[in-house]
């Protein structure tokens, strides 16, 4: 049969953003896939060179509108490193707690939409969104806004957390533990979900390393690598947690890794709540940044929900001279042509879905 070329996107419900794929198919089998990106390019790196340090978090948040706090924290943390500003201890605990809640919220949204795409219609989608809404409510009460928080300041937060913060977090962690544990009952019993994720989009261990993927995609391929362990920041070295690792590297394993990560995040939150000291968490007001000692370069890495985010910054006195963002979803997407070869066309979207891509971050 002759090879047929099919255009997918740039606007397509299965790609979760503006991704154009040019797919060559032989019958129903994919022969090659060519991703075309850049439809959402805003030139964020260039823009950030023109703004002062604490004007930039509103850009970093929009890099990943599903987990804004994670990118925001990575950026603020690298500025703190550049300017040599210590983070208050209570604020470190609060940041870790909120970051882990943000990770769960991001994974919940991913899970809900991904299973919805591949035919497990709406039951789990509604469950995930119900639980995510509770996390967003907590983050809203802490920061003042529901999606784009901009509540991090150098050295801490814009204000102290509400009085009942610890109790509310604990109650929410209990609630999530109970709810999230119910999900596999739905999914593992669903033959549609199992057939469309098991042995789909296999990425071997060697390829995962040489293609440079990170985060849950890397760990699903059997590589035990997590920035929270290998380059601990804040208080992660004081906490005990497990890194879920799977070995098949297919879409199902990527789901399992993310699912187990959510449970680990809950355990991290509980430990951090247990150890959290009393104290002030308010950071510096935005305007008070004097000229500071500047190192030549700053490299800061953190584990974002989608993988390893790195900021390579050449700091200047009031603003970054050059800032370069390593987007985990960018490099996770670049592996798509490799893993979708010889798959069926219908499975392309469970593969794209399982990579958890987000285009605001990929195109920058």
């Amino acid at each position, binding site marked *: 049969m002759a090879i047929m070329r099919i255009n997918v996107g740039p606007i397509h419900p299965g790609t979760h953003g503006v991704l154009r794929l040019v797919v060559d198919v032989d019958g129903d089998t994919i022969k090659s896939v060519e991703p*075309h*990106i*850049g*439809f959402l*390019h805003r*030139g964020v*790196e*260039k823009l950030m060179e023109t703004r002062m340090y604490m004007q930039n978090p509103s850009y970093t948040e929009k890099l990943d509108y599903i987990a804004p706090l994670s990118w925001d924290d990575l950026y603020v943390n690298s500025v703190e490193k550049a300017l040599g500003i210590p983070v208050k201890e209570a604020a470190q605990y609060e940041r870790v707690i909120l970051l882990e809640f943000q990770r769960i919220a991001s994974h919940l949204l991913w899970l809900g939409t991904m299973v919805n795409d591949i035919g497990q219609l709406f039951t789990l989608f509604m469950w995930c969104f119900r639980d995510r809404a509770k996390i967003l409510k907590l983050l809203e009460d802490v920061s003042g806004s529901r999606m784009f928080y901009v509540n991090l300041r150098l050295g801490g937060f814009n204000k102290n957390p509400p009085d009942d913060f610890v109790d509310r977090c604990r109650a929410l962690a209990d609630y999530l533990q109970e709810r999230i544990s119910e999900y596999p009952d739905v999914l593992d019993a669903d033959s549609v979900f199992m057939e469309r994720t098991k042995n789909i989009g296999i990425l071997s261990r060697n*390829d995962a*390393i*040489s*293609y*440079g*993927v*990170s985060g849950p995609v890397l760990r699903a391929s059997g*590589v035990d*690598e997590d920035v929270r362990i*290998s*380059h601990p920041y804040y208080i992660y070295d004081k906490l005990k947690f497990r890194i879920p690792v799977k070995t098949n590297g297919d879409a199902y394993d990527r789901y399992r890794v993310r699912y187990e990560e959510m449970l680990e995040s809950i355990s991290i939150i509980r430990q951090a709540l247990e150890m959290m000291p009393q104290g002030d968490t308010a950071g510096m007001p935005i305007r008070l940044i004097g000229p500071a000692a500047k190192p030549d370069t700053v*490299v800061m890495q953190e584990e974002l929900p989608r993988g*390893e985010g*790195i900021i*390579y910054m*050449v700091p200047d006195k009031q603003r970054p*001279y*050059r800032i*370069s963002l*390593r987007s985990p979803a*960018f*490099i996770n997407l*670049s592996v798509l042509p*490799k893993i979708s070869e010889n798959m069926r066309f219908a499975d392309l979207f469970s593969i794209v879905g399982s990579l958890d891509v987000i285009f605001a971050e990929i*195109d920058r």
Partner: protein
Amino acid sequence: MKGKGFDYLKKITAVDYTDHLEVVYLLYNTKERKDEIVRVKLDPETAEVPTLMKIYPSADWYERELFEMFGINIQGRETKKLLLELWNGVDFPLRKSFTWGKPYKKME
């Protein structure tokens, strides 16, 4: 570098210091969990680096980005396909000499 166990290329990026360009490679050793940063100084006029695609396939998109954003030529790549594709491939936005508001030149 790969012989020394640095099997994971995290990122390639570049910095324009106006008098020279610097290409930065962030490498990682997954077994020993060690980082390494390699910096290469280049002349802005004749900037060129060899491709790493044979050693690290992850270099593919980063190299396309280097060419598109900094105008750094990549030796040994057959295609000069841009990554973002909507840009013209004549002006290099992340260089400091790039000026805002120039009329948009169409790609040939």
